[in-house]
């Protein structure tokens, strides 16, 4: 059983057990345009909630990807470095950025639900 939550900086987080998978939303991917470079954090790195954890660059600009929840990076999607366009093709699936383990459910439940995020995006 997994649930997905969202941030106002347009990351999505899918929690399974105490491991969160993190990426950028479809809205973010469309706003950025063609992604040409991705930098993901190395395994074992400790990240705190709200800290810069990855980088995504389109032709036009570079953007930070923040860790919506704190924990230790357990895996990174190295495939994105070779094929950054995956972020545009499947932002909320194969285009995931990294996984964090040891996530507290309190951190997670603070984030927006899918409905709340949809409302938030509508207002932008």
């Amino acid at each position, binding site marked *: 059983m997994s649930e997905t939550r969202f941030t106002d900086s347009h990351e999505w987080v899918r929690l399974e057990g105490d491991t969160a998978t993190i990426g950028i939303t479809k809205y973010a991917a469309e706003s950025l345009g063609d992604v*040409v*470079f991705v930098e993901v954090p190395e395994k074992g790195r400790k990240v705190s909630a709200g800290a810069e954890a990855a980088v995504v*660059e389109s032709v*036009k*600009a*570079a953007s930070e990807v923040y860790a919506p929840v704190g924990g230790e990076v357990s895996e990174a999607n190295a495939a994105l470095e070779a094929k950054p366009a995956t972020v545009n093709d499947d932002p909320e699936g194969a285009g995931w950025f990294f996984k964090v383990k040891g996530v507290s459910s309190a951190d997670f439940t603070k984030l927006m639900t899918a409905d709340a995020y949809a409302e938030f995006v509508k207002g932008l």
Partner: protein
Amino acid sequence: MDTNDNLRRTPLYALHKELGGKMVPFAGYEMPVQYPAGILKEHLHTRAVAGLFDVSHMGQAFLAGDTAQLEKATPADVIGLKDGMQRYGLLLTHDGTIKDDFMFSRLAGEVPLYLVVNAGTKEGDFAYIQSELKGVTLTPRLDRALLALQGPQAVTALERHSPGIGKLTFMQVIRTTVAGAPAIISRTGYTGEDGFEISIEGADAECVARALLGEPEVLPIGLGARDSLRLEAGLCLHGHDIDDTRDPVEANLVWSIGKRRKTEGGFAGSDIVLGKLANGTARKRVGILPDGRAPAREGTEIIKDGVVIGVITSGGFGPSKNGPVAMGYVQSEFAENGTTLELKVRGQSLPARVAPMPFVPHGYKRS
């Protein structure tokens, strides 16, 4: 400009919206940064086939009277420009720094010169030209539209609406018609590709743009791809790669100074510029290729042996190069092609090297 209400629109605004253009503020105008195809496809299509750009925000004007006076404000050879030719020039301050870059044309059989300056600087440029030159009348034509049709098949598409246009070679310019509308067409552009710039009455712009977009070769292209195309072509963007803190010598634009002008001088800041030409400059504009995949953006520090020796002034991803490309200024002793450098990107030092420009060969139709 804090709200979109203050932004100006070109005559093609409605068409951009209809085509799904993503509109952004640029130089006081609301302009399409991209269309639904996206910057990557737009860029590659222009290099491979043809793309249409709205550059109506740029400043068009006619300079009548004693046009030789323009040599007071630019080191380019104005007097020697032949009928039917266009030329690139720099507008200089009295300190010998770059106020703007611009194109000027001598249309066959006409006394007035046709000028095109940058969008964000046009009012200031026009005021400067009018105040520096005696015995001239400058007539800005902000009512006119300007389209750029660029790419190896631009000529094929344009021939259908402007028969015979393919006879022009690079930097030639004529008065003709396009899709029935009176036009000034030059075989120039700012993408590094073969192509044309088409100046027309604002009222004709939408009709002409629709006619060109109706050709199977032509896609609409936004400002995003315009920027990546010109960067790969090694061409300067005013306000970034050149501005009034840079001079023509360090900017590596000495080729735009007329041969006669190098000995005669007589232009704003000429003593300073000719001194630099003789003695060299402390810095030089160079091409820079990062070794990895990470783009180095404008403002990135350039490091050699732990010391900051320069700065990136334009940088990003080059879709045709399929990797990061950049240009910037370095201390002249490090300007040699092949010099290894480091770029400070997000706190990390990334290896890079000085590289010749253009990064993608120019496709100009020179003969």
